[in-house]
């Protein structure tokens, strides 16, 4: 039995292919302007990893998720990223009850039951404050790579700088000014991370945080955010070895369930 999950996010597109319950392929690329093309590309590349004459047709069931889920032409069914992230995280960490998924342009706090089924969730609103995109802009403004942002933010000199604007765009202006005033790079980054945690925390508060806690999505890779959040919550965060594929994995698991239940 071969099933696949494909997660088309605003920043990255991910594919997970399962043989029975084993993950055989993980693959992700950056989402291009044409979401449909992106979905073909990422899937084809993933299939090629199994072997070259493997095609979409040879997969028994495909579930698409992510904001681009509806445009994936070859999916049998679509499931929202919310359900998929719960399921994916639950696969890695069966004891998880609260999940934070921080994607490119939204941020979800999800609580699930022992079966990995969503029981409640909260999402941020029509503003990019506290999202992956925000961090991208910060990194690009300061001319550093997204990967370095987290570690650097932990080496504060005078403590986190105050970035007063919520707005992802204006934060960039603030940062520019701070730079001109000669504020240390790390302090600015620390300020940016603090800012994000400040935006995320209320979501988790409203949801009510129950152990275990897990973070997925691109931002989970950012040690600057994760460690600060762990400190604020006073609990350890579980993070999958590849936090970006959790959604796609969840989709693949749903595909397996649907196939078995003949749904």
């Amino acid at each position, binding site marked *: 039995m071969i099933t696949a999950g494909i997660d088309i996010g*605003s920043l990255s597109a991910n594919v997970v292919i399962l043989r029975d319950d084993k993950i055989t392929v993980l693959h992700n690329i950056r989402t291009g*302007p*044409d*979401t*449909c093309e992106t979905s073909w590309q990422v899937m084809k590349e993933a299939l090629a990893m199994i072997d070259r004459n493997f095609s979409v047709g040879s997969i028994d069931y495909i579930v698409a998720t992510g*904001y681009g889920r509806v445009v994936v032409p070859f999916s049998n069914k679509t499931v929202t990223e919310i359900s998929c992230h719960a399921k994916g995280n639950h696969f890695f960490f069966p004891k998880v009850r609260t999940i934070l998924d921080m994607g490119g*342009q939204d941020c979800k706090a999800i609580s699930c039951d022992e079966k990995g089924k969503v029981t409640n969730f909260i999402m941020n609103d*029509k*503003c*990019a404050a506290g*999202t992956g*995109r*925000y961090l991208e*802009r910060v990194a690009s403004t300061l001319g550093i790579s997204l990967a370095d942002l987290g570690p650097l933010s932990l080496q504060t000199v005078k403590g986190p700088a105050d970035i007063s604007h919520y*707005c*992802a*765009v*204006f934060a*960039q*202006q603030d940062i*520019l*000014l701070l*730079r*001109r*005033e*000669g504020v240390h790079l790390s302090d600015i980054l620390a300020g940016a991370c603090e800012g994000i945690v400040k935006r995320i925390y209320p979501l988790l508060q409203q949801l009510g945080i129950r152990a275990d806690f897990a973070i997925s999505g691109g931002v989970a890779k950012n040690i600057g955010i994760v460690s600060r959040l762990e400190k604020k919550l006073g609990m350890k965060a579980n993070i999958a070895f590849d936090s970006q594929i959790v959604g796609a994995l969840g989709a693949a698991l749903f595909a397996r369930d649907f196939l078995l239940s003949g749904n």
Partner: protein
Amino acid sequence: MSVAGIDSGLHATKVVLMNNGEILSKAVLTSGLEDAYTIAERALKIAMGQCALPGDSYKYILATGQGKSHITFADESAPDSICLARAVYKVLPSVHTILDIGAAHTLVVKCSKGIATGAVNSDKCAAGSGTYLEIVSAILGVSFENMGGISLKSTEKIEVNSQCAVFAESEIISLVHSKKRIEDILGGVYRGLALRLYPQLLQVGLEKDIALVGGMAQDIGLRSAIEELLGHKIMFPEDPITIGALGAAIVAEEKVKPGK
């Protein structure tokens, strides 16, 4: 008697030197990662270099703009609203409403005879600022300068609703993906932008004539979108970028005028 006006903006610092109402010289420097003080100092030097007068012949230096408080070598600082009102009165005396759109702010000033009588300032959200357009130009791969012109070729009305610049990004990407023409997308972008500026304009009363100044004033796309919205022409000075600095210089002159 000579004076200097400095407008320390986020993206550029402008200097105007004046002598008895005559502009001696101007200088515009785009800000890098230098602090406001240093770059203002440099801009001032450049401007001074353009005219023969010795450095100490400048009786009064007045700073305005978002970085004004950092320019400690200036004798005084004054709010943008006051400087804009003075300058626009000098170059476009019939104007009663000034719309100043810069990189990160939008300021609407109500004025009569060079006196600012009201001002509405917005900077809660980038949706109405030049930065928003920079993001758009980056997504569409169109140069910032050409966007306006292209938007005028729009034939189909498209709505770009996203308040948030970052969300507009994905909205625009999906428009591109659905094979919409760049011209029409830009048309929508400018219309949306004008619509978001509209409440602010209405708040000060929209008394004619209306002038568009600041970094964005040269953007023909924005200008025509606003004119379309208001249903009449708006004015703009030939050098809209240095208008704040000019105002600062005028206010400086008032200070040194004998008897004042």
